[in-house]
């Protein structure tokens, strides 16, 4: 019977992802664009914040995905560490720039948002700062991949880095809370009784969240395929040399 691990075989992965990719792209496109349009043009302005509240449709999804991206990298790295599936290592490598990109957008939109709300572009608020640190971890992780020639060595080193980094990212988050009490919006539950976001805002937000989720998956799939092709090229060249 077919075990899930078969998909970790590069060849199998290429064939499967070829089929899956278009669908994810499609859903991502529809949900993201739809959600954003819905959010931007078909929701009333917020009574306190006015039109600026609409940034939330970019800001929150990117922010949430930025964190999930790192989690996905962690999982992929662990799979590589335990089962030595090359594809999962490459998937982690492929996810890093995407995650960094989302983080950057979350920070940027946040900054743009903070301008009208807090009257300043940047606050050393724990939430914001911890995201900045997350961004730094992304940079380090990417740099490590770049720096090491041998792909397997790089995969192992980045795995160790990713694990240690995750631990310290969490520690610093708590350290930061201890350091400075923030202005930033707390985590909120979207649909419980005393929700601070009325369903009017909530539904398009949920659409955007799903949209960005699929967008992430699509991007990672795409980049993983590229990485695999690069590795294949490398392998084939290596063989040319030997004959």
């Amino acid at each position: 019977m077919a075990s899930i691990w078969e998909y970790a075989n590069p060849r199998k992965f290429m064939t499967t992802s070829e089929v899956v990719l278009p669908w994810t792209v499609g859903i991502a496109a529809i949900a993201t664009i739809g959600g954003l349009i819905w959010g931007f043009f078909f929701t009333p302005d917020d009574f306190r914040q006015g039109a600026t509240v609409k940034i939330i449709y970019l800001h929150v999804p990117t922010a949430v995905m930025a964190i999930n991206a790192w989690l996905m990298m962690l999982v992929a790295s662990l799979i590589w560490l335990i089962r030595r599936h090359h594809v999962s290592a490459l998937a982690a490598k492929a996810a890093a720039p995407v995650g960094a990109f989302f983080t950057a957008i979350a920070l940027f939109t946040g900054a743009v948002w903070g301008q009208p709300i807090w009257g300043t572009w940047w606050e050393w608020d724990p939430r914001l700062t911890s995201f900045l640190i997350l961004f730094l971890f992304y940079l380090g992780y990417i740099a490590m991949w770049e720096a090491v020639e041998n792909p397997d060595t790089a995969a192992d080193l980045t795995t160790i880095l990713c694990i240690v980094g995750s631990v310290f990212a969490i520690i610093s988050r708590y350290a930061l809370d201890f350091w400075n009490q923030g202005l930033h919006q707390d985590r909120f539950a979207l649909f419980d009784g005393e929700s601070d976001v009325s369903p009017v805002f909530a539904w398009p937000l949920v659409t955007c969240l799903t949209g960005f989720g699929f967008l992430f998956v699509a991007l990672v799939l795409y980049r993983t395929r590229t990485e695999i092709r690069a590795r294949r090229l490398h392998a084939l060249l290596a063989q040319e040399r030997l004959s």
Partner: protein
Amino acid sequence: MTLKVTDLSVGRGGIRLLSGVNFALVPGQALVLRGPNGSGKTSLLRCLAGLTPPLAGRIEMAEDAIALAGHADGIKAQLSVAENLQFWAAMFGSANIRPALEAFDLIPLATRRAGELSAGQKRRVSLARLLVTGRPIWCLDEPTVSLDTENVARFAAAVTAHLATGGSAILATHIDLGFAAETLDIRQFATPREAQQNTDPFAWDAAQ
């Protein structure tokens, strides 16, 4: 203290270089690896020393049996020759370094800064380290490089003495070692092209 290698295959940089390597090294035996540049001698020695994990096959020997002397000297320029050897003696828990110094005529250089030694003098220091380790199996990568004839003779004497006391040695070289030993041409283990493929998961159905 025998070293037994069965169906070993060795890789470097994601490429399988050698496969089906089989040999045994018994106490008192010296084995010389021969092969053209880039054939995989260094890689094989590093694999035996446990630095690179083998791609396949088994290496059977006692724990902590191997001492390695590679292309690089492993000498600290700031320390004197004696201090360098003392450090290794401490690491391998052997008592005095005097015999090692004498074996390679390093007594006159003992107090010199290792950084101020000539190529051949450095080489002698790194060879003296082998005696200090007290390990039975020596893995030597081109040990006689930049040694003059006199010191090649010293090296040969040291190796034969080591063999006489039940030690063994496996050496990679292109030049004369100063003593007779059976040679193992590693070209016979060079990986054929079709075997090459299935080592790398990314090289599926490559054109032959």
